[in-house]
């Protein structure tokens, strides 16, 4: 798959600029639309199957193509990930340990299956998950607090799945902006930083008779720390039924059966005992284990001396 298929086709450098441009365009058409329960596109509410395949499944592209999207630090991290996946055979997948899935896993084939969408005038909720719950709450009509390092709705706390605002462009598009995302990784893919932000556009798909069949979901990812330019993923959700049919959506609790033992993922049966090393969740725990158990003879670059203030004394 060529690099051109991965990067954003839009000229925007930031999610904010992208969102504001879409808002301005909507305003020229008299929007954004202030829906009521009578006018909101309720046909969106329902159940959707597994999304269509796209490049982030990572199975049909070359690693150097992906590396070309990343900044040097995140290139290094992805090479480390790929090396241990393919060479050491030591895979540290967050979900296998019931660690957080992380924001970008929402786009990964193995992390999500059926989706449930609930549409109201002021809140749209998307739920999905396999090992963990992905709950995307889109607060329609709200504004971000722009006073911090990244835009946010609530407290200055990075959230594993971010916080999302949006607006309606008639009944033909829901435009959203997600920010305040905790940096993390997707195994066999790349890491993203806590500066990751997305613009996502949901548009209805209809058959020749005009019948609603599902949603097109376009997402543009902005991360000035990890990405050298924005990337884009386009996928589609095919509606399978309303909430009046099928099995209920169930909240997921991840029960851990695989543990890192001596730096390697190991299934343990009930009653088994092992020495447990508490993961340093906010310190790239996967990398810490690789460095401890699989990189003993490798040299790391020297980092800045964080603790020397001798030159700062006045």
């Amino acid at each position: 798959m060529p690099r051109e298929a991965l990067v954003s086709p839009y000229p925007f450098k930031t999610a904010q600029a992208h969102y504001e441009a879409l808002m301005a365009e909507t305003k020229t058409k008299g929007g954004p639309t202030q829906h009521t329960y009578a006018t909101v596109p309720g046909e969106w509410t329902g159940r959707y199957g597994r999304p269509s395949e796209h490049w982030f499944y990572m199975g049909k592209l070359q690693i150097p193509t992906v590396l070309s999207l990343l900044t040097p630090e995140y290139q290094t991290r992805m090479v480390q990930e790929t090396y241990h996946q393919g060479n050491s055979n030591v895979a540290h997948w967050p979900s296998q340990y019931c660690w957080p899935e992380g924001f970008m896993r929402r786009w990964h084939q193995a992390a999500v299956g059926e989706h449930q969408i609930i549409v109201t005038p002021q809140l749209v909720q998307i739920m999905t998950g396999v090992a963990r719950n992905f709950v995307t709450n889109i607060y329609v009509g709200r504004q971000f607090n722009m006073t911090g390092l990244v835009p946010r709705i609530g407290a200055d706390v990075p959230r594993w799945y971010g916080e999302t605002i949006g607006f309606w462009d008639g009944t033909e598009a829901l435009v959203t902006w997600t920010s305040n995302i905790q940096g993390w990784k997707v195994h066999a893919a790349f890491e993203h930083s806590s500066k990751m932000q997305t613009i996502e556009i949901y548009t209805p798909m209809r058959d020749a008779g005009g019948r609603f069949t599902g949603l097109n979901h376009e997402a543009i990812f902005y991360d000035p720390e990890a990405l050298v330019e924005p990337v884009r993923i386009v996928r589609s959700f095919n509606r399978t039924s309303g909430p009046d049919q099928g099995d209920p959506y169930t909240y997921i609790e991840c029960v851990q059966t695989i543990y890192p033992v001596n730096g390697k993922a190991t299934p343990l049966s009930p009653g088994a005992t092992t020495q447990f090393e508490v993961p340093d969740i906010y310190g790239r725990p996967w990398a810490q284990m690789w460095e401890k158990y699989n990189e003993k003879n490798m040299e790391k670059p020297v980092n800045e001396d964080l603790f020397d203030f001798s030159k700062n004394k006045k």
Partner: protein
Amino acid sequence: MKTSSTSARTRNSRLSRVAAGVAFALFAAMAALVVPVQAHHSFSIFDSTKTKVFTGVVVRVNPDVNHLQIFFAVMNEERTNVIRDAKNQPIIWAVEMAGSAAAAREGISVNAFPPKTIISVGLHPLRSGEPAGDRGGSAMFKCPADTPPKPGKHCDSVEGHAAFGRGALPTPTS
């Protein structure tokens, strides 16, 4: 400034040991079903009769929803660097406080306390002896960027410091 003597460990293993100590203590507390209202663990794991006061360099803020933790390397008396163990590794302590959202409302967050931030904080240490403690209700102070206090002093003495919480630094116990 009061510090605790600790064994020689690496920074990462110290972070892990701190977390392990806290996790074990939390489990023990939960098992005993001693769970105060609006808290997710018993504070009996901390020795409230003891107070330590540190000035240190932030190495990490863990924004956990249950209790935000700041990990910091304890500074030397000269305030020119950090104290180190026998393996020349920084001595890392952790201070826990309210949940990350409540701490953020007080101005304490990952973004407000990036690595290399100098702080002064009091804490009630873990009874287990692990290098971690609970901030309790005392104020915490942040020095201006790249501006450590004068020797033996804390951030509350530095012009331009920021205070978090009410009052002053607590008085350390002997």
